């Protein structure tokens, strides 16, 4: 019997190695796998590259991971937040590399990684500082830059419902980066608010099919933090 549901955080985090690229879901506090991030802090992997939309708030979660010196590089679209104190001090001190990526390019690069596309062309960032140094090409008279896939070694994902095959649904705007990160990583670890029986999710309503999921941990944490 296939059973992707793991019983402990240690099992969920097993095998994440130093130097790994970790994709972390969420947009703001919504759809962010907070318990898995804490689990990664506990687990100890270092020299990480993390790819996510925001670079952490305050001194907890992703900010704490950075504060502990475990992150070498951040790939994100919006390092600013209401309280980006950790990111900014490390960045200013030259202790953190930043790859700033337009949000749509960030999403498409992960979707490409999941879909077997090593590179694609986009009009985003043409003629701007973030397009500098990138190969450009014209199609039908318009200029595009080439962007490469962004695969992860690990994805940390937050879901609303999950079954033992790893089928997932998401809640409202908590969907965001989670499904494409699940596709893009070699090892996809999910924290889910609800565990349901196989067959409970309608086949047309599964958003992320279990083929993209390796481990599911039941974390019924309730509502996301308010800002």
């Amino acid at each position: 019997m296939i059973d992707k549901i793991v019983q402990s955080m240690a099992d969920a985090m097993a095998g994440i190695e130093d130097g790994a690229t970790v994709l972390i879901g969420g947009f703001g506090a919504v759809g962010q796998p907070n318990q898995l991030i804490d689990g990664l802090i506990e687990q100890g992997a270092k020299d990480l590259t993390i790819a996510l939309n925001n670079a952490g708030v305050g001194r907890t979660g992703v900010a704490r991971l950075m504060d502990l010196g475990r992150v070498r590089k951040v790939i994100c679209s919006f390092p600013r937040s209401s309280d980006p104190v950790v990111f900014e001090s490390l960045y200013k001190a030259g202790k953190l590399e930043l790859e700033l990526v337009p949000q749509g390019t960030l999403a498409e690069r992960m979707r490409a990684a999941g879909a077997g596309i090593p590179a694609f062309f986009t009009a985003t960032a043409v003629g701007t500082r973030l397009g500098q140094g990138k190969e450009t090409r014209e199609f039908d008279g318009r200029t595009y830059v080439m962007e490469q896939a962004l695969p992860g070694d690990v994805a940390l994902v937050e879901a609303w419902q999950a079954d033992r095959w790893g089928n997932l649904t998401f809640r409202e705007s908590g969907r965001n980066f989670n499904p494409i990160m699940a596709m893009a990583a070699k090892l996809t670890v999910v924290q889910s608010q609800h565990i349901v029986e196989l067959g409970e999710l309608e086949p047309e309503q599964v958003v992320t099919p279990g083929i993209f999921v390796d481990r599911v941990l039941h974390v019924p944490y309730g509502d996301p933090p308010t800002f």
Partner: protein
Amino acid sequence: MPDTAVAEFKPLSRTEMAARAARDIPEGWYVNLGIGIPTMIADHVPSEREVIFHSENGVLGMGPQPPKDQVDPWLINAGKQYVTLRKGGSFVHHADSFAMIRGGHIDLCVLGGFEVAENGDLANWATSENDTAPAVGGAMDLAAGAKRLWVLMEHTTKDGRSKVVHRCTYPLTAVGAVKRVYTNLAVLDVTERGFVVRDMAPGLSFEALQERTDAKLLQG
């Protein structure tokens, strides 16, 4: 204090700017509103005029902000404010959401700006004054991808420098993308000949507007 020649003119308030832009949005358009003043535009589109608001984080069909005691913590917009969903709204993931933007399906995007140039260039994400890491978010995708890009911004900086310029001096967000600018002083179309004035604040003369504008203006 304004000089005497224009003592009588009345710049638009932020609310009036948002309302002015809202007037020009027809029913049926799919619209993405940037963080800041542009977000206020939604409040000025009457709900019987169905305009479908999109947010980069996978929300299509956003409604107004909820009363504080009816907040749904799972439903935020790109500015991380709590919003609501209208009947007919739907959720998608980030790649699908940006496919709407980058694939040219969004009829209109309204962004804030630091500078808009007469060639349609937009600078709105980074300034050289900014010594911390700049944040780009979805601005470049929206500027390059939407069918129409409008910019809603003050006409000048706090110290009186024109933001409507011959050429941008700040790092660009997109090249030749802006179609129209709404400021507290005027509505300007970006045309092949440069900025054409479509509307001015009550009491403002073309000459007085030109005086406050770096770019050369054309009468509409």
